[in-house]
């Protein structure tokens, strides 16, 4: 048994085609779900809590919502438009295939199905999707680094915020690690400076206090008071 290679949605009103495709795909290590028409397919695709589909296999000729309409809706939906759609078509339907590819379909699969072609086209579509997913993930993580830079400036940076990016083995990961280290150094330096400023402030206060004491004790009035106090002490002792 092969490891699961991808999760596919088979959309075809014909149950025989669904049976053939799901079995063939299972044999090739894919997991599948099926829909009998376009509406059902869109419902499955839009259920966010489900496992996401890696590729959609879509029949052209279907009742209610046909392949063209379903494809158009998928491509108009920002959350779905990046899922590769492979059109299922008979060999004599090249016009339909061209129309669908112009609308954003990734490829087409001729009926009757051929195992090698099925595998080749799905692998190519999956590779394209995975590349796209990696690109999206990369952009998202670049966003984390940019946000971290803004957080450092605002004094709200948390080292953990770059933890995931820092595990990347590539240049972005290296950047995140260097950034984490530098942010840590900046924070340590800032804390040390704060401590030193605090200590300096205490010293200044002590000097000021000494100055004030001196200012009072060195006045004529204070000297006179001290003289009177000495006089009083002598009388009391004498």
């Amino acid at each position, binding site marked *: 048994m092969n490891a699961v290679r991808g999760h596919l949605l088979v959309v075809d009103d*014909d149950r*025989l*085609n669904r049976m*053939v495709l799901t*079995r063939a795909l299972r044999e090739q290590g894919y997991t599948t779900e099926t829909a009998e028409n376009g509406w059902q397919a869109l419902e499955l695709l839009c259920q966010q809590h489900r496992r996401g589909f890696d590729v959609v296999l879509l029949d052209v000729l279907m009742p209610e919502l046909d392949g063209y309409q379903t494809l158009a809706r998928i491509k108009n939906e920002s959350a779905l438009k990046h899922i590769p759609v492979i059109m299922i078509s008979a060999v004599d339907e090249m016009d339909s295939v061209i129309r669908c590819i112009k609308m954003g379909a990734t490829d087409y699969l001729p*009926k*009757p*199905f*051929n195992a090698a072609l099925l595998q080749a086209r799905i692998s190519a579509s999956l590779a394209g999707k995975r590349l796209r997913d990696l690109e999206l993930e990369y952009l998202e993580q670049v966003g984390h680094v940019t946000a971290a830079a803004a957080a450092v400036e605002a004094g709200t940076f948390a080292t953990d915020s770059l933890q995931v990016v820092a595990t990347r083995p590539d240049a972005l990961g290296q950047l995140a690690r260097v950034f984490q280290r530098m942010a840590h150094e900046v924070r340590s330096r800032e804390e040390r400076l704060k401590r030193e400023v605090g200590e300096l402030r205490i010293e200044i206060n002590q000097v000021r206090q000494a100055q004030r004491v001196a200012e009072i004790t060195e006045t004529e009035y204070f000297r006179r008071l001290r003289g009177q106090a000495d006089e009083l002490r002598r009388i009391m002792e004498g």
Partner: protein
Amino acid sequence: MTEPNVIDKGALDELQETTGGDPEFLAELIETYLDDAPGLLATMRWAIGAANAEELRRAAHSLKSNSASFGARILATRCQELEQQAKNGIFDGASERLVHVETAYADAERALRALLPPA
């Protein structure tokens, strides 16, 4: 043994290979095909009477596609002719074409049933 020219053994072998080479599953597929085909033929007959090109086209398309998968090439070709006619919205001669489809189906059915294990 299949009847010569009715079922293309190569196509049937390819279908079996594509679905993992399991003869039991192939038999299940043949049974499903034989279950669904009479309904599609009935839809075609109804659609010609009702001059419903869309339904005629869809039913002819399905039977064409499924028949091609089992290597029933003559039947697939007959269905394609009817599908094309429906696509063009022409009903003249459609009933005669349907008779050709039904005849080709009867041959294909016989040949495919012969491939099923005894009940």
